[in-house]
């Protein structure tokens, strides 16, 4: 079936560097793509979303890029900090009730 998937399960990043987390999707009918962050012991928290008719969206220290040609989504975190250590999930919205289809997640580890 269709799914949202991630390329790498773990990403190790040095503090201060930029992080890039990648995600592949297969459902072209999704109208929104979203990134969530889950810190240890907590539930996922919304970071940023992008509508399917957009290529790029920027937030505070984060940028999401959408490449519909190759069905690829990425999250860039600028100047990665220790507080960015978490599992990051990409997700896609299906239908009008806010149903989200999540990927497997990428563990980001920030090293000093």
């Amino acid at each position, binding site marked *: 079936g269709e799914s949202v998937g991630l390329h790498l399960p773990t990403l190790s990043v040095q503090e201060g560097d930029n992080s890039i987390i990648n995600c592949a999707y297969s459902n072209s009918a999704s109208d929104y793509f979203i990134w969530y962050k889950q810190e240890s012991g907590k539930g996922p928290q919304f970071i940023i979303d992008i509508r399917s008719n957009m290529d790029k969206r920027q937030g505070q220290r984060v940028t999401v890029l959408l490449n519909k040609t190759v069905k690829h989504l990425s999250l860039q975190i600028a100047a990665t900090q220790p507080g960015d250590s978490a599992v990051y999930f990409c997700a896609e919205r299906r239908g009008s009730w806010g149903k*989200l289809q999540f990927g497997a*997640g990428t563990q980001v580890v920030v090293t000093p």
Partner: protein
Amino acid sequence: DVKVTQSSRYLVKRTGEKVFLECVQDMDHENMFWYRQDPGLGLRLIYFSYDVKMKEKGDIPEGYSVSREKKERFSLILESASTNQTSMYLCASSQQGAVTEAFFGQGTRLTVV
């Protein structure tokens, strides 16, 4: 501050028991969701509700049921717990019409022995 509260952080139950997981939100949200989280599989939707007494099956509803008698409360029921239901369960809520932002509880780690 918005809040979704799950009644237990950790729960241990025996095979065959009926298990209730409770979730309460204080944001007056119409939509509520139950997800299951397993390593390598991400979050999978079990059931969701868009109004009181309304429910819809998600991707993995087998072995589960739900109840929503009040707007703020959404319960997940395991009719007869099995070991393959050992998992982290996450409740979430969102506003009607909210496109992408759901608010999650801290999760319930359920172990079935």
